[in-house]
């Protein structure tokens, strides 16, 4: 592979590309972990958010509001620099990055999912209740299937936000695509100037993100969902 690239773009650029692609795997791992972890926590908070019990709901609202209002960069600084220094503990960059991105993802995911649940017509809840379904069964059999359909495209779309978000983790020395891109871009080596390296890095991010953007759009069309309506619902809540 590298030999082939070498003949194509020269040995130096082939090596550079190989380094960047190898760093990309960490970007992918971090994205996937944050997406899955954030999704699970987000799901829990979505459910807490709609429980009939008042104080639990308020707690969930506070959680979502907090982590939506905190810049991801600050989360990274706090977990990667603040906590280690304050508690005199060693927090490896990957752990700080994972925790930060997971919290960030969970807040936004539960907001999207709450929007999806809320966009279901009140009549559906009432119809379910009229059939004698309790809250849980109503949610399980009547509301969720409809909400799931609405929530899928923006969920896939949010994956793009997560991937882009991981690019900030280099700031606490997480060895991802961005970190290596910056290293090479700053190296002052001929052939690795910023106007070559950063577009290349951008291209790699684009190749990770754009398919997801397309998939999200395709789902939106095939499921016939008005994402604008959902957007507006979400924004009203936020």
């Amino acid at each position: 592979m590298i030999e082939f690239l070498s003949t194509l773009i020269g040995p130096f650029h082939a090596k550079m590309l190989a380094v960047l692609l190898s760093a990309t795997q960490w970007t992918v791992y971090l994205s996937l972990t944050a997406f899955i972890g954030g999704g699970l926590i987000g799901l829990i908070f979505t459910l807490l958010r709609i429980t009939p019990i008042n104080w639990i709901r308020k707690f969930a609202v506070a959680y979502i509001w907090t982590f939506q209002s905190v810049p991801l960069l600050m989360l990274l600084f706090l977990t990667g620099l603040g906590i280690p220094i304050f508690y005199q503990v060693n927090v490896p960059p990957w752990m700080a990055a994972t925790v930060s991105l997971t919290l960030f993802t969970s807040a936004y995911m539960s907001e999207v999912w709450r929007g999806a649940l809320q966009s279901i017509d009140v009549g559906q809840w009432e119809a379910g209740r009229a059939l004698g379904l309790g809250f849980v069964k109503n949610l399980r059999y009547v509301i969720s299937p409809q909400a799931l359909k609405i929530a899928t495209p923006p969920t896939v779309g949010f994956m793009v936000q997560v991937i882009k978000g991981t690019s900030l983790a280099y700031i606490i020395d997480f060895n991802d695509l961005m970190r290596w891109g910056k290293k090479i871009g700053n190296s002052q080596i001929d052939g690795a100037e910023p106007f070559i390296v950063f577009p290349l890095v951008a291209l790699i991010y684009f190749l990770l993100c754009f398919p997801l953007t397309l998939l999200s759009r395709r789902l939106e069309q095939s499921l016939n969902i008005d994402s604008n309506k959902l957007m507006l619902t979400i924004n009203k809540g936020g």
Partner: protein
Amino acid sequence: MIDLRFYEIWREQIFVEKLINGIGTSILLMILGGIIGFIFGLALATARGSKIRFLRIPSATFIESVRNTPLIVQLFFVCFGLPMIFEYRWPFFASALLALCLNFSAYYAEIIRAGFDNVEYGQSEAARALGLGKNDILAYIVLPQALAKVYPSLVSQFVFLFLTTGIISEVGVEDLTWAGRYIADRNFRDFEVFIVLTIAYALLSVMFRGVLTATGQLVFPWYREK
């Protein structure tokens, strides 16, 4: 065990000055970036929905490129890459502002375009029936209604973007995040500093949302949510 020393942050006058400066810079960047980005975004959205391929394809490419790559990469490209290509030397503030404007414009364009698509067909039809021309219909009928419809989304996007702008401290723009890092590098109270910064960002985003929502009610007094 918990020994929080927030006073270490305002221990020295220079720290306080840097913080206040940083807040001012962050707000200024957002105002300029918000306005210029909005104007770019409007142009992009119009070009994106145009029938002319020469306008549509480049604008769509730009929008997708920006939306599918991280801000930080765009920032480094605009601040370090572009100056080498064009052999200009702007102050980093200007380069960073340019990067922010380009970034904002792509997100705004996508929202505004959704607004265009959502104005009821009957509106432009009624305008046509009155004999209004294409440009008048766009400017007087479709645009104001589209903007009113997507205004809440624009505000949310603005606040979301605000929370991502701290990264411009990386290129030496002395914004709020930069001020925090400056202080933390000197008093070694990273934890307290970033807690204060976090609260400052949250408060500023609440402030932005409040001011923008109030502005919206002034600009679109006729708008009723359906």
